[in-house]
């Protein structure tokens, strides 16, 4: 049996990655997260074929990375997940001599990201954003009046307010490591705390509002906000702006706004990295370097409405985006952003167990 298992494993290995000499690049990125023509431009310039796959949760990416032999050359995990994957030995160190465009990156933002990847040795920031609140302006005003607390987490975390919005639809991200700290922050606790009782207090608050939550999902809300099927979503900045843009395109009279609440919000970085077993590491470096060109990254930001960390690209970014405090926060708002704490396995289990409790209400 042992030999049989080994033979099967070897066969699986041989069948996995594409042969290294092919001029192919396999990219695995978040859904709705790149400009229309970025891939085509890269293919044309380097004469290669890019296989571009997408995911909508860090967990799915992580499962593939930990299983190994994914065949991907460039992946884009979020900072706190990146750190754990580096610890598991998933990524290779970047060869910075192949990444001359690193000079374009904003030193301050790269220093922030270094909290997860000391010395920025494994990854480069692709885009970054915040986890705040997207809402349907007219419907929220209709239900809560002019003095609706649209600048505060109270909009979703105050049970009295949430009750009034329930029939029009509140949605939460299905991301315990983002929702629980947000609730803890609203209660005046440290959102980076890893103490069990803090998580329990956050979960208790979420339990109070959960009867008014329609669903927990991390991408469904984009189209639902745009169609007017839901009213308020805890969501990722750029996704809410995409909902806003889709509603405008559809001309259905739905107006969506995004807010970084006054109490503060989570700031995250999505980072480009190369798995150790990537079949085409050289081309992967070329791709990362290509993304760091000011025109390319500015164009992506203009398309997906997420902030980038490429200082040289900012003059090329649409002023409407550059001056939007929901995308590039003001200095005052920046001071209230927090970075995700990294949890150990025990903390993860506590967080996810509480989250199951919150979601099922039992």
């Amino acid at each position, binding site marked *: 049996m*042992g030999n049989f298992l080994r033979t*099967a494993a070897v066969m699986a290995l041989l069948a996995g990655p594409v042969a290294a000499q092919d001029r192919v690049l396999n990219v695995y990125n978040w859904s709705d997260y790149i400009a229309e023509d970025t891939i085509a431009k890269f293919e044309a310039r380097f004469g290669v074929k890019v296989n571009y796959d997408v995911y909508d949760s860090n967990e799915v990416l*992580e499962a593939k*990375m930990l299983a190994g032999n994914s065949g991907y050359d460039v992946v884009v995990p979020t900072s706190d997940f990146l750190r754990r994957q580096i610890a598991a030995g998933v990524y290779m160190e970047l060869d910075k001599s192949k990444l001359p465009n690193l000079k374009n990156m904003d030193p301050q933002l790269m220093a922030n990201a270094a909290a997860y990847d000391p010395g920025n040795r494994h990854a480069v920031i692709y885009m970054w954003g915040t986890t705040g609140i997207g809402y349907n302006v007219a419907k929220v005003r209709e239900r809560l009046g002019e003095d609706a607390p649209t600048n505060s987490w109270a909009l979703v975390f105050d049970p009295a307010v949430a009750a009034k919005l329930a029939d029009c639809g509140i949605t939460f991200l299905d991301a*315990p490591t983002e929702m629980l700290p947000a609730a803890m922050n609203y209660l005046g606790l440290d959102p980076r705390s890893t103490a069990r009782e803090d998580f329990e207090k956050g979960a208790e608050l979420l339990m109070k509002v959960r009867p008014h939550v*329609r*669903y*927990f999902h991390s991408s469904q809300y984009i189209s639902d906000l745009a169609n007017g099927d839901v009213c308020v979503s805890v969501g990722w900045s750029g996704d809410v702006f995409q909902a806003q843009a889709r509603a405008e395109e559809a001309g259905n009279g739905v107006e969506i706004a995004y807010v970084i609440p006054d109490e503060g919000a989570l700031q995250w970085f999505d980072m480009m990295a190369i798995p150790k077993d990537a079949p085409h590491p050289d081309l992967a470096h070329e791709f990362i370097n290509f993304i760091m060109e000011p025109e390319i990254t500015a164009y992506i930001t203009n398309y997906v409405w997420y902030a980038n960390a490429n200082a040289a690209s900012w003059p090329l970014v649409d002023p409407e985006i550059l001056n939007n405090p929901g995308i590039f926060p003001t200095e005052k708002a920046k001071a209230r952003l927090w970075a995700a704490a990294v949890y150990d396995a025990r903390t993860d289990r506590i967080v996810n167990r509480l989250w199951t409790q919150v979601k*099922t209400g039992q």
Partner: protein
Amino acid sequence: MTGARRIGAGRALVIWLPMLWLILFFLLPFAIVAHVSLSEATIAMPPYRPALVWPEGGWLPEYRGTLDNYRFLLEDPLYLGAYLGSIRMAGIATALCLLVAYPMAYLIARSAPATRIVLLMLVVLPFWTSSLLRIYALIGVLSPNGFLNSALGWLGLIDPDRPIQFLQTDFAVYLGITFTYLPLMVLPLYATLEKLDPSLLEASADLGASAFGTFWQVTLPLSLPGVLAGCLLVFIPAVGEFVIPALLGGPDQLMIGRVLWTEFFNNRDWPVASAVAIAMLAFLVVPFMILRNSPALRGEG
């Protein structure tokens, strides 16, 4: 002599081909999952410390496993609750399937042979579309601004500004499962009903039984093997169903498929996720073993 050997080789092929199939696609994956369920989670690639370790140059593996993962399932009421929740949901969905499928199968079995083929085609036809697409189509029908609410609003049955919340409810999940699994119930029912000897029904009528009496005392008992086969075909996959409750259901349905997902993806605890899967298999195998010995399933009713 040569003839006899050829028959022997043919027989071996017939026996070993299915065996090989089972070993490759059932036993081997099962062994891998069972092995992971005895291992310990850690941050690595893959994220567990194997229970069986081959020492350098050795042939026999050393066992370093643990039953902690199974013990863990017993300690937290979450898992038992999820198993029971899944069984309850699958049971109700199976009953609904049976209620809808029985008249359909009966009608098909009783219609003229030419119509029969058309009707059977209509039952199987939805299978030609990906089940995921059909579930997304249901989302379009059931959503607050969807077809159903628009139709009800147009008929004046509801206020269009206050649509009925169909999605993210138990109703949507039952509808989704019944809709998806219906052919699996109709086909075995049809197969038994079609073989039913009409002279038995005539005899029953001649002996003075009412139409309902004939159905209750003759047709239904004779179709029990089909009922059982259909119920198993629907019930077993419905217990582990993940996609339909995830897309159509609300967050409060505690289902084992969802719990398994959380263990694997959110906790990245592959050993506990594997233990959940093995325990679920045990949950399903036991009732099947009981039913296997029932005369109805063997067609001896």
